[in-house]
């Protein structure tokens, strides 16, 4: 019997559990689980230190874009079994995970390639924004170079 696919995006205001995301994609038919963890980096910009990030999302559209993203991934890598993403909203301090993603597949190659593409697509398409907040109390909105309408967009 073919196992039904699970595609899950959760937008959360609390600390992310990598284990919870990994468990959400577990499957007896899968020999591989690929995981990506995106963490808020300690960074210095013009002498100001980043103390954290403030996230917001267009939540219903994030869900619909996530479903489209999963359709694109499955079309290219049909063996992908389950996909789960937990993404933070609100305040995330330096050192904490802001996104955790897991993909299960029978064999590792498909899962690893799908993960690479899924992270690119997430940064390019998911309606989520973050503002870097500095120790000087200033803040600036970030732009992903993967986003086609960003000023720093790379082809």
């Amino acid at each position, binding site marked *: 019997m073919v196992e039904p696919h699970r595609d899950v995006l959760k937008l959360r205001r609390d600390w992310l559990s990598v284990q919870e995301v990994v468990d959400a994609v577990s499957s007896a038919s899968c020999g591989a689980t690929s995981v990506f963890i995106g963490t808020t980096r300690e960074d210095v910009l013009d002498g100001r230190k980043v103390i954290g990030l403030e996230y917001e999302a267009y939540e219903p559209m994030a869900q619909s874009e996530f479903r489209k993203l999963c359709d694109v991934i499955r079309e290219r890598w049909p063996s992908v079994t389950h996909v789960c993403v937990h*993404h933070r909203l609100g305040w995330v301090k330096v050192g904490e995970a*802001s996104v955790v993603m897991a993909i299960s597949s029978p064999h590792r190659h498909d899962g690893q390639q799908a993960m690479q593409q899924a992270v690119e697509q997430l940064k390019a398409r998911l309606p989520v924004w*973050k503002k870097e907040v500095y120790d000087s109390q200033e803040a600036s909105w970030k732009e992903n170079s993967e986003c086609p309408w*960003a000023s720093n967009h790379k082809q």
Partner: protein
Amino acid sequence: MTAQVTVLYFAKSAELSGLKEEELVAVPTPISSQGLWSLLLQRHPRLCVLQHQVVLAVRQQYVAIGDELVALGDGDEVAVVPPLSGG
């Protein structure tokens, strides 16, 4: 024809407009996405700093700003979408 739509502002566009959302009661339809953006610029001139680095979302679908015609219905959601920075 006109339509009553809800406009949502996110990230920098919310800071520039000073609003998270507003109701527009008589938006002409059909309208080009450029026409819709111009209408929002008239209401909130500070949004012009986003010019050329913004798209709209109409009923949760991205629409580039240009000649494309958009048909609006009462209760539709239009969002101002500055460059994305998820992840």
